[in-house]
């Protein structure tokens, strides 16, 4: 984790979904390091406790909210946890699942699971969080999209559909709630050396080969890092991006510029 020394989020409350591991955990840690009080949401309670302990060890403040983002009542409880901390100023939508399967082999269960977590989850989170953000004087929502929300990739039918739809859901939320002082933006990473892609690479049994192959296809010749993602998310969460809303910030080493 990089330590910037600044405390851009002092006095702010931030909720992060998918916070038990990977990018969500890294983003939560950075927000806490920069002064935010955190609500950590995930289905993985043990993971949340580890991340929360690590944040506390560095002098940060985090509350855990075990949450399945596909369940309305659980999302409402997560937002309630933020309200108990005094409001909500930053919401990072990082919870996601990835199923690698071509369209014709994607069964209804897989399809529904990906759409529920990656699209309905952000919908429910925004639906419950925005009213609290408005009561808190406004805020910033940052959703983790994907390069695959903008370009096609063989074998990722449901995932591509969910991330593409997420982009327009966020644009819609942005224009609908801009006048309320709520900004909504998307960060779209390509393959990173942490998170879903890294996990898939590890499972392949030849992780380094897979990572090198994917990196070689990126104009910048490397994978994204947790630091790359954290800097982008914190930029969009902070006042540095005060006039930026409904934007998609690619974090892909130039990949999409070559493919569109």
């Amino acid at each position, binding site marked *: 984790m990089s330590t910037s020394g600044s*405390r851009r989020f002092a006095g702010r409350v931030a909720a992060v979904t998918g916070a038990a591991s990977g990018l969500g955990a890294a983003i939560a840690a950075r927000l806490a390091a920069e002064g935010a009080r955190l609500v950590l949401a995930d289905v993985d309670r043990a993971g949340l406790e580890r991340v929360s302990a690590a944040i506390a060890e560095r002098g940060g403040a985090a509350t855990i909210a075990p949450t399945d983002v596909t369940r309305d009542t659980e999302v409402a409880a997560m937002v309630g946890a933020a309200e108990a901390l005094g409001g909500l100023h930053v919401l990072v939508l990082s919870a996601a699942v990835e199923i690698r399967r071509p369209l014709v082999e994607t069964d209804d269960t897989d399809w529904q699971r990906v759409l529920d977590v990656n699209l309905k989850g952000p919908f429910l989170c925004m639906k419950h969080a925005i009213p609290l953000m408005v009561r808190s004087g406004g805020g910033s929502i940052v959703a983790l999209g994907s390069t695959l929300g903008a370009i096609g990739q063989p074998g990722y039918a449901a995932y591509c559909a969910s991330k593409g739809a997420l982009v327009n859901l966020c644009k819609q939320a942005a224009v609908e709630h801009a006048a309320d002082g709520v900004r909504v933006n998307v960060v779209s990473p390509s393959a990173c050396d942490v998170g879903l892609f890294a996990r898939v690479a590890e499972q392949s049994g030849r992780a380094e080969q897979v990572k090198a192959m994917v990196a070689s296809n990126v104009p910048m010749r490397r994978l*994204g890092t947790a630091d790359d993602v954290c800097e982008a998310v914190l930029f969009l969460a902070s006042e540095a991006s005060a006039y930026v809303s409904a934007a998609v910030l690619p974090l892909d080493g130039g990949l999409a510029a070559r493919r569109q």
Partner: protein
Amino acid sequence: MIDAGTSLAGKVALITGAASGQGRAAAVLFAHHGARIAIADVNDAGAAETVRLAQAAGADALAVHADVSRHDDNARMVATTVARFGRLDVLYNNAAVQMSGRLVDCTEADWDLTLATNLSAIFWACRAAVPHMLASEGGSIINTASVLGLIGSEGYAAYGAAKAGLVALTRQLAVELAPRIRANVIAPGSIDTPRFRKVVDDLADGEGFLRGLMQHVPLKRLGTADDIARVALFLASDASAYTSGCVLPCDGGLAALR
């Protein structure tokens, strides 16, 4: 306190159109973040004032007279910058002209000037700057396009075409110059700068125009030069180290609505 991610300490930035508005705001913000700065503009008095502001922020700064619509001025401004500071890390192509007029009323002279200033100038500046960027640590190119490069709007045929061309040129730069040079676009919406105010003041019903405009801006305000400068700082700095070929609207949500 300055976030380490957005520090420009040790870096040299060349900003065109920096005698006022967005370019000046960026020069001052970059100065606060440790950069040495070359300020290029046709307006020498304005450039001198930006130099003074950047120096007051603690930076070494230099004014360079340049009419970016002229091929040779682009090469010269890059050479002058490198001669003074010894390197070039950030090229921020901010200078532009904006002439409105429907396509059928757009004169050939207006078309040529718009395309030269808003598109060819960036090609010329990048061609001159890239070898110097590669000679040190690589760098970041920031090109100011416009939401009018993304969406259509009545009366901006030449301007919209040039800005859309700039978006495409930037994607090309990003792919071709990776991994050592990043290239990104800022697409501002309506920004409250002296130039914008002059356009509004020249209208018969400026206030009515502004009210109409606000109906299309979800955030319900004009942007400020500082709004754009903070986005430019993000793109100039290592905070955006893995972002290239990106078009980042800074428009209060305008493009999404349209």
